[in-house]
């Protein structure tokens, strides 16, 4: 067997190399050299991101267990950039005395989950997919419970691992049925054999709820706010963006590649899920005081919007989906970034604590505001474009009513985003949070996010590039 074809899995190997290097460096480097651990890690990861950002020809490895299409490069790059931003924002947190000792693990675990997502994205076989999925979620549980002296963190970890395993066992059961009805685990073969017999449909439902869980769609979302609240903020942001981004892409790929014959069955499912997710999440979001919970519900609602891109199943939908994830990544990370630097400084996380923030922290407030506006889909920020495109993709397939419901929900979502803006800019406060000075990496991350939010929408090249490699039914 020719193993050289394995070398084509460039992204995975390069990430693995970074991981191994960091692991070794963390264990064996002197105390003095360890001071440079984080810069080195960040630079290496940035280099990895840059090296792997150019799409290549499609190929298959291991007889189709690993299938590469150029679009994956974009998705992985988006995940890389997102991870990089998260790491930049976590820099200060990891430099604190109590956490310094654990930072090697932090990086290693984060990169593990990322590697898992890589495999999940490129999987051409359910085994590969399952391994990727679990590689992405088990280290995530440890990350969630990272802050081990924090009760909330522990609780969140427990909730996450229990829910995740519950979901993946149902999903696994579904996979077993898929295997039972088709006799193969390869996507390409299943696509032909998966014709929609009743048992196959049941298998499909059981399997897909595992992914719905990952994307945290209503009613599989209940873990999300608790875990988001309990986890350390940078990990929450990682969870909300990277993990979710990978999952939605995979969902789209699976639906159009593997379950293409039963489109008439999964479209109504997504329809219902989108409506319920957006609406219920919005209803919960309007009453949240804790900003992390608030953003958790916001991200659930955003996930509902993403379904609008998936439901079309077209190439346009695919491009819009990836683009949406990109924009969502910048916006959400900017918001979480602000929350994290403020939380680290003042331990304050409630919306009422943010009253009058603009007086003391104009720049942070500004970043937060454009992030929220982008999430709400207000031009000229990128979120407007991404929303418009997914709506457009859905309307193209005739989902007028769905789009209309989603749009009505944007009113509610605008309402709660404005509540935060109102707190920062309008509400008076005698003792606003004192001025926060963020460290250089965090500043870089804010600049990246801000530029992303402002530029990604206005410059159409980005979308066009994505659209080149998009594929649909």
């Amino acid at each position, binding site marked *: 067997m020719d193993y050289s074809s394995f070398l084509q899995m460039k992204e995975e190997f390069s990430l693995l190399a970074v991981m191994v290097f960091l692991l070794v460096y963390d264990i064996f480097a002197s105390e003095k050299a360890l001071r440079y651990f984080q810069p080195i890690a960040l630079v290496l990861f940035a280099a990895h991101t840059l090296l792997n950002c150019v799409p290549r020809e499609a190929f298959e490895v291991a007889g189709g267990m690993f299938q590469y299409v150029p679009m994956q490069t974009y998705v992985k790059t988006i995940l890389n950039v997102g991870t990089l931003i998260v790491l930049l924002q976590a820099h200060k947190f990891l430099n604190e005395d109590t956490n310094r000792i654990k930072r090697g693990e932090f990086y290693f675990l984060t990169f593990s989950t990322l590697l898992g997502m890589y495999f999940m994205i490129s999987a051409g076989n359910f085994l590969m997919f399952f391994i990727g999925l679990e590689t992405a979620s088990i280290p995530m549980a440890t990350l969630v419970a990272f802050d081990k002296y924090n009760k909330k963190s522990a609780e969140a970890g427990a909730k996450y691992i229990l829910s995740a395993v519950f979901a993946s066992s149902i999903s696994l059961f579904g996979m077993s049925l898929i295997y039972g009805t088709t006799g193969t685990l390869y996507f390409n073969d299943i696509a032909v054999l998966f014709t929609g017999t009743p048992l196959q449909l049941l298998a499909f439902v059981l399997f897909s709820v595992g992914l719905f869980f990952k994307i945290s769609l209503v009613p599989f979302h209940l873990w999300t706010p608790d875990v988001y609240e309990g986890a350390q903020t940078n990990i929450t942001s990682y969870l909300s963006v990277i993990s979710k981004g990978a999952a939605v892409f995979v969902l789209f790929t699976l639906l159009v590649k593997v379950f293409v014959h039963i489109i008439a069955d999964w479209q109504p499912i997504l329809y219902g899920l989108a409506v319920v997710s957006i609406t219920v999440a919005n209803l919960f979001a309007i009453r949240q005081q804790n900003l992390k919970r608030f953003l958790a519900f916001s991200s659930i609602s955003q996930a509902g919007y993403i379904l609008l891109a998936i439901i079309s199943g077209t190439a346009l939908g695919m491009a819009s989906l990836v683009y949406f994830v990109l924009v969502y990544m910048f916006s959400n990370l900017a918001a979480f970034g602000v929350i994290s630097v403020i939380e680290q400084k003042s331990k304050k996380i409630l919306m009422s604590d943010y009253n009058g923030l603009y007086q003391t922290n104009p720049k942070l407030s500004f970043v937060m505001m454009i992030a929220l*506006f982008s999430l709400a889909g*207000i031009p*000229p920020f990128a979120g407007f474009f991404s929303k418009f495109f997914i709506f457009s993709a859905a*309307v193209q397939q005739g989902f007028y009513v769905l789009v*209309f419901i989603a749009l009505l929900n944007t*009113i509610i979502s605008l309402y709660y985003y404005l509540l935060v803006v109102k707190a920062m800019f*309008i509400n008076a406060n005698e003792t606003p949070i004192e001025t926060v000075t963020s460290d250089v990496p965090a500043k870089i991350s804010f600049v990246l996010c801000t530029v992303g939010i402002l530029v990604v929408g206005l410059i159409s090249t980005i979308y066009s590039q994505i659209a080149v490699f998009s594929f649909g039914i």
Partner: protein
Amino acid sequence: MNFLSLFVLIPALMMMGLFVSKNRKQIQFVMATGAILLVIMSAAVTYMYLTERAAGNLATMLFTADTVWYAPFNIHYSVGIDGISVAMLLLSSIIVFTGVFASWKIDPLPKEFFLWYSLLSIGVYGFFISVDLFTMFMYYEIALIPMYLLIGVWGSGKKEYGAMKLTLMLMGGSALLLVGILGIYYQSGATSMNILEICKTNIPIQAQYYLFPLTFMGFGVLGAMFPFHTWSPDGHASAPTAVSMLHAGVLMKLGGYGCFRVAIYLMPQAAHELSWIFLILTGISVVYGAFSAIVQTDLKYINAYSSVSHCGLVLFAILMLNQTAMTGAVMQMLSHGLMTALFFALIGMIYGRTHTRLITEMGGLMKIIPFFGVSYVIAGLASLGLPSLSGFVAEMTIFVGSFQETDTFHRVLTIVACTSIVITAVYILRVVGKILYGAVQDKHHEHLDPATWYERLSVVTLIVAIFAVGSAPFWISSMISDSVMPVITQLAK
């Protein structure tokens, strides 16, 4: 990129200028320069437009430029103007200009105020120069959000409530609109979101039946159409002066302009079939707004309801679907924009001195601050349609135009709408009588600061514009009337 984009670029540059300016002087310099540039630009564009037309260029839109923006969605950044846009650009420039001077000494946070203000004007200008559905919608939304902060931070009274309500209701409008726009694009089968392209196609009549109401209502919310007008009183009442001016003066015109340019132009059959529903609604707006204004006691509420009535007339006239009425509608947009801006400017300036907006707490101000008093009377007279002021020509064009429709339904509605001129007189004179005439109500009002130079500049500019439109309406009316023709042709199909 052609020169029309300067209208968007100049405010953008103003925003950058504001970013780097250090003190109030520099901020004022940036704003004044930008505003003057915009006025010059729009005057130049008007001149160029008229010469081009005089030279025999009969294209629907002049000075068009088209750049592909998002190819997969056929979204182009395309600009172009016709007589109506020119009129609206002129209006916007005048109001942006006067708004800057009306808030010359805004406090606190002048920099942020003008930043949002400039963003708002980007939205407004962009909307009027766009001929692409997407860019139109985008600019429409750009204009919405700065409102929230402008009202929320610098407003007065129940500002948070008012700001939130305004923003959410307008967002609701834009939700309807977005479905409408996407529907139009996909149903028409056009290969472009450019309005001029879409109008060549035929949208299936079945699709028009639901797209037309969506689009019309979407824009109608911004045009304060009954029953979606309630954001207007609360929003305007709590907004700071310049924002009320810009919002009532220009932003509400986006509604009428959009109804005209998108709803009716692109879906003429449905416009014929369904216009009666909206005629009733807008007819109600006209009378209802005026009657509501009679019993209000807050100056801004009065003006807000009056705007409901006047803007209702705009939509009403558009729905008459004939050239004269539509011309009148655009004239009314222009006229209402100018006079309502003047009203809000004056109300803001008076409020800044008396610290009350309740007409029951004021009186005899004519003697104390004659400049504002006289200006207020002029604004009032313009509002009740005094000849030689802008309101008259606009309303008369609308009424004459509306009367061209012969059936009893249109006749009766037209006559009902005509009654608004009487009701308008009632509430205008009530206000004038209460606050300007009679005895001074409050001891503190016996000595009020006279108008400053920037206030005078702002007010006088608006008054001159009102007189200009009202006294020499011919050129502007014929300019608009020509540009209404394509829609009429479309309707005749």
